[in-house]
């Protein structure tokens, strides 16, 4: 995208019918570190990459609990994300107080989207620079939504946002059809694999990622570092192993043994190579 004479105000249309400020806001989401979400019939898993600026600092919080039955993972301007999370928490708690019942996640995302839309139609405001993956549970089961700075929202089986999210999306596209029937643990495993895809060869450790789960009978909570590291070790989610596992899964019909010895250089390279 290049600078042009229609991109100064959010209230200026381009001749092609575009609002450049809104599109620039979506760019900000792409610059943030990756966040992914996936859901089954009964559970939603949110995971994100947490890179600290330096060894001295702590990393930013990118996953927020909104209520027992709703959580959100953000990518982009985390300050904007924090403010929106606070709004979501407020809406949930007010609804709970009045109706003694959890706010249906589908209604929360619409309210969130309408709030974002306002900022695309006021000359004295700017769009929120954050993308939100909202995972929640309601009467009809588990849901995952993505809320854009543009004010649009979509429901997903699985999605990834932020930098190098395309790698994760490629992985998820291959596996999403089985997610609806996945068990909770398989879902978490797939989330970790997807995160690993965005790391470009870097080693997946629990210190650089955060995983959160919610589901039927399981209120939203962030898994602690130890548990995550255990899961990483258990599934041996290290660069070389992962493609081998996928190859093994794909070769289920054949009698070929899991290709541990055969260096799957070609397979290994592909997901990394964006």
């Amino acid at each position, binding site marked *: 995208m290049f600078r042009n004479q229609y991109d100064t105000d959010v209230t200026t249309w381009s001749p092609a019918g575009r609002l450049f400020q809104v599109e620039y806001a979506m760019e900000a989401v792409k610059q943030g570190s990756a966040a992914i979400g996936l859901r089954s019939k009964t559970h939603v898993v949110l995971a994100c990459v947490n890179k600290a600026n330096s060894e001295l600092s702590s990393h930013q919080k990118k996953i927020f609990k909104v209520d027992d039955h709703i959580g959100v993972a953000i990518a982009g301007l985390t300050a904007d994300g924090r403010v929106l999370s606070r709004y979501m928490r407020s809406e949930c708690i007010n609804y709970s107080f*009045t*109706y*003694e019942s959890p706010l*249906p996640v589908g*209604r929360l995302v619409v309210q969130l989207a309408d709030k974002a839309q306002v900022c695309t139609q006021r000359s004295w405001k700017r769009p929120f620079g954050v993308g939100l993956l909202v995972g929640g549970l*309601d*009467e*009809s089961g588990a849901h995952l939504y993505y809320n854009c700075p543009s004010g649009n929202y979509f429901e997903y089986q699985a999605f990834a946002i932020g930098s190098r999210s395309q790698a994760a999306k490629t992985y998820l596209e291959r596996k999403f059809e089985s997610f609806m029937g996945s068990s909770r643990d398989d879902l978490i495993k797939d989330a970790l694999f997807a995160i690993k895809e965005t790391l470009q060869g870097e080693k997946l450790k629990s210190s650089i990622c955060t995983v959160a789960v919610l589901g039927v009978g399981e209120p939203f909570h962030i898994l602690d570092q130890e548990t995550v590291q255990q899961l990483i070790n258990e599934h041996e989610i290290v660069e070389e192993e992962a493609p081998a596992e996928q190859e093994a899964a794909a070769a289920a019909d054949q009698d070929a043994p899991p290709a541990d010895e055969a260096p799957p250089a070609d397979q290994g390279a592909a997901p990394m190579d964006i």
Partner: protein
Amino acid sequence: MNMVDSAQPFKTLLGPESDSQRTQYPYVTGTSVVGVKYKDGILMASDMGASYGSTLRYKSVERMKPIGKHSLLGASGEISDFQEILHYLDELILYDNMWDDGNSLGPKEVHSYLTRVMYNRRNKFNPFWNSLVLGGVKNGQKYLGTVSMIGVHFEDSHVATGFGNHLARPILREEWNENMSYEDGVKLLEKCMRVLLYRDRSAVNKIQIAKITEEGVTISRPYALKTFWEFNAFKNPTVGAEGSW
């Protein structure tokens, strides 16, 4: 003129709110509502009377109304306040339907909402002068609750308002059970309403029984209860002169 003037100073002592309105006492009132859970849902009964003080002024007032798809609301107390509450609920259900998203407010949510409304008004010293019974079924779950004019609220398997608290609830405590059929439930409610008819001065003999199940709400046509007055004590009331019955 002095007598009229002496009323004013008291009101002006209230300060800035001296010209605000607040419900001090009810004018047109309905009497008891009785509700029970039964096998398939909730049964509720009330008569169709609305009194103006001690006059049995109106005799075709429906004091039970369906709310949305899943609830039924019965009210005793000031009828105009009940109508106002129905107006609020109408708006609530409308907005709920406008979401058009497969979610809907169930009886628990409506009960909680009503509790908030009643309690809020009580805190402003301007109560809705009603006792409400809210029953419903959603996703197979039966719900029966009550809210008073001061915001006291609770859920139970059988509830009653007004005189029903004193006359109907003891009967329900003895004879209610979880697996009552529709016929059993109606018989039990009729027994309660009969006692109320005999003993509550503001009761009229024109009752309705409302039923709510997963399928929906049905409110019966009005009908009268059979009563028995052939007790000996009623036949020659002056026998034994003063002091007897």
